[in-house]
């Protein structure tokens, strides 16, 4: 079956670093990004821990040369990560080939919408944020800043699988010959909206999240942006591009079980992983490492664990969730973990699942808890979202 789609660049900003190198350093030195919230004024600040990006908006604005309070934080961090991805890929003229941009986001400009919700009438100077409530607006702004013209630019919003789905669509468009290259990933900033939303679902942990642990109490929200540059084989050949890895398989399926919760046996997750294996032309035993969704909610980790056991027939590969480092970065998570998957391949290193102590009662699955060297040829990455949305990506060293 299918050949992989080349990854030629990547960029990221998260609670554990402002670029790829800083993120890698944090992952290998167990430097976590989870702390008390400092940049949003919420009454829940003593009840939750979050993965905040260190830079404040004014610092981000300065780095990008953007006027004060012109953009949502989602756009600011998205632009930083997308720029790094382009630079990493060595692309200077973004319009010289058919280049697309596909971004995933759930909140878009919600950080500003919630701040000025009742103030737009009296304060003309903040009205630039009115159109920011459109999720697509954040993508458009990033695309413009990157200089994209006459291009395919779109936004995917499938909750916490958004960026994974953006990567999937990009890979499919390269394969079908509609684009020569495409920047894919996602961006989401923290907002009161998501903090309170997850609070109502009662799945926020009041301390450090503990993915796959029997005593897990819920997730830490995080914020991040992360993008990959995907290119066609002819582009890679023509420009003699260095390839960082390949998007080898992908699959999206719906759990069709519940609006927010995953089914007990992880039906959707099983389907997504099987589809991805099929697209990659691989068997379960070909997977060397699984970067799990692993949000540390009671429901997700049980459902995902069961799905892993079903797909891998009790021979589950070494796996870990990196969300204890970054928090759950919602729409960006699939992008963040795509970058981590490529880093794992490049360095033959499995990143640890921090804070894990006790195996879950329901099955005998223990994540990797200390960074582990291992020759990796393939990494499978899961991202699941509300609305039963389940996505799996498979990354490989070889095409």
């Amino acid at each position: 079956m299918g050949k992989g789609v080349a990854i030629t660049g990547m960029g990221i900003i998260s609670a554990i670093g402002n670029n790829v190198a800083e993120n890698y350093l944090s992952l290998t030195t167990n430097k976590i990004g989870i702390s008390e919230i400092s940049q949003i004024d919420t009454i829940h600040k003593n009840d939750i821990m979050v993965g905040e990006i260190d830079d404040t908006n004014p610092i981000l604005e300065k780095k990008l040369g953007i006027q004060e309070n012109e953009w949502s934080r989602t756009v600011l961090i998205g632009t930083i990560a997308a720029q790094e991805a382009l630079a990493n890929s060595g692309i200077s003229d973004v319009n010289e080939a058919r280049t697309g941009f596909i971004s995933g986001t759930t909140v878009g400009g919600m950080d500003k919408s919630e701040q000025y919700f009742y103030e737009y009438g009296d304060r003309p100077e903040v009205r630039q944020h009115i159109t920011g409530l459109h999720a697509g607006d954040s993508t458009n702004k990033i695309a413009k800043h990157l200089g994209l013209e006459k291009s395919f630019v779109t936004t995917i919003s499938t909750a916490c699988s958004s960026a994974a789905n953006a990567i999937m669509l990009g890979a499919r468009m390269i394969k079908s010959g509609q684009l020569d290259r495409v920047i894919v990933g996602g961006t989401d900033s923290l907002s009161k909206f998501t903090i309170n939303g997850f609070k109502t679902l009662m799945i926020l942990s009041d301390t450090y999240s503990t993915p796959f642990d029997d005593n897990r109490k819920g997730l830490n929200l995080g914020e991040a942006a992360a993008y990959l540059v995907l290119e066609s084989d002819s582009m890679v050949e023509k420009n003699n591009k260095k390839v960082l890895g390949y998007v080898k398989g992908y699959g999206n399926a719906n759990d069709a079980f519940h609006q927010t919760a995953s089914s007990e046996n992880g039906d959707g997750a099983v389907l997504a992983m099987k589809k991805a294996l099929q697209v990659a032309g691989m068997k379960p035993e070909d997977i060397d490492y699984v970067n799990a969704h692993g949000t540390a909610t009671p429901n997700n980790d049980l459902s995902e664990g069961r799905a892993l056991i079903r797909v891998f027939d009790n021979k589950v590969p070494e796996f870990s969730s990196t969300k204890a480092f970054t928090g759950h970065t919602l729409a960006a998570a699939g992008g963040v973990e795509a970058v981590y998957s490529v880093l794992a391949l490049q360095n033959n290193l499995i990143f640890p699942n921090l804070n894990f102590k006790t195996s879950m009662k329901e099955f005998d699955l223990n994540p990797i808890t200390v960074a582990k060297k291992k020759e990796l040829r393939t990494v499978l990455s899961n991202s699941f979202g509300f609305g039963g949305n389940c996505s799996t990506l498979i990354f490989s060293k070889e095409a």
Partner: protein
Amino acid sequence: MSELKQELKEKIIEQLNLEDVAVDEIQDNDPLFGEGLGLDSIDALELIVMLDKDYGIKLADPKEGRKIFESVQTMAKYIEENRSR
């Protein structure tokens, strides 16, 4: 207690948009979840907010709700014993 039960039935219908259900159709011991009214886990979260807002009862763990929300009878009993408003 019977006044509280009547009040709860009205609130459940209103809060959960059970347009097609009348107050007198809900018996005190009818199960609220699964069979019976057919409520689900999202409804349970809605009811937890109702306990907090209207009766000053805070539940930290959604699992605690399962027993409390078995029926209008169990809900009323729990509220009587724990209410702060």
